[in-house]
């Protein structure tokens, strides 16, 4: 009886944390889309990634949750913040005019996707989804992820490093080309840029 009560209390606690994280996730996602200042949008994305990490922890994906916070919130969003700060006032983009036909169409299409998937999930749910598989404590741990990366998915791991290298070279090339264009324009100010 006590064990049953304890497990019920544990489940209620898990649900409370899950619902809190889910609400934070959706609210911060809306904030990313709706803020007119991209700096606030990037900060909202950071909150979004934090609540995602909580959701990952609840389904024993410890390593992915840690990587999410370190790599996504710690590196990618900070890169966004650097670029937004570098652009300064030019990065601001307030809402322009009334919603056009295309905006309405975009919202309708997105709602249609959401409703379609939710209906599909609910229909399978009423049919009785199978219970989640039993897992051991090793599931999602750094040891397990490391073993999978270096044994089963070595090719993906290596291709990943090539992609990152190409992206770094691409970023440097784009920056260098822009700097050369800027210099050329400074030397011949009479020539009008039409780009």
């Amino acid at each position, binding site marked *: 009886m006590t064990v049953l009560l304890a497990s019920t209390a544990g489940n209620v606690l898990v649900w409370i944390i899950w619902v809190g994280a889910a609400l934070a996730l959706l609210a911060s996602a809306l904030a990313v889309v709706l803020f007119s200042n991209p700096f606030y*949008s990037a900060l909202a994305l950071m909150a979004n990634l934090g609540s995602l990490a909580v959701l990952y922890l609840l389904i024993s994906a410890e390593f992915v949750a840690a990587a999410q916070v370190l790599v996504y919130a710690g590196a990618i969003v900070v890169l966004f913040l650097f670029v937004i700060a570098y652009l300064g006032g030019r990065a601001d983009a307030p809402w322009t005019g009334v919603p056009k036909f295309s905006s309405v169409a975009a919202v309708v299409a997105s709602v249609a996707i959401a409703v379609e998937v939710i209906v599909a999930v609910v229909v399978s749910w009423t049919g009785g989804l199978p219970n989640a598989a039993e897992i051991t404590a090793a599931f999602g741990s750094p040891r397990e992820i490391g073993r999978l990366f270096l044994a089963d998915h070595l090719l993906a791991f290596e291709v990943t490093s090539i992609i990152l290298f190409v992206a770094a070279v691409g970023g440097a090339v784009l920056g260098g*080309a822009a700097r050369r264009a800027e210099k050329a324009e400074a030397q011949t100010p009479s020539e009008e840029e039409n780009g």
Partner: protein
Amino acid sequence: MGPGIGAYLVLSVLLFATGTVGVLIRRNPLIVLLSLELMLNAANLALIGFARQHGNSDGHIFALTVMVVAAAEAVVGLGLIVAMSRRKLKLDVDQMKQLRG
């Protein structure tokens, strides 16, 4: 039982739809990129949920690879935005007509 795969899938599609709206209606390329990250994260959430459902860690590997692709995409996208800004182009995806050097 805690939240099952169904709850995670519903949450994932809501996040995906929010990201889609952002990509389609915003004209600032920075916010388009941020909304793109939302869509990638929605896919990651579904992958992690299915990994737990099937008790198979391969989904975690897929999610980590998606994270790497997101990093690469952010670097190239932000590089393009900085290049546009240095050429004094307006930061508006509706007015981008050419990316030719």
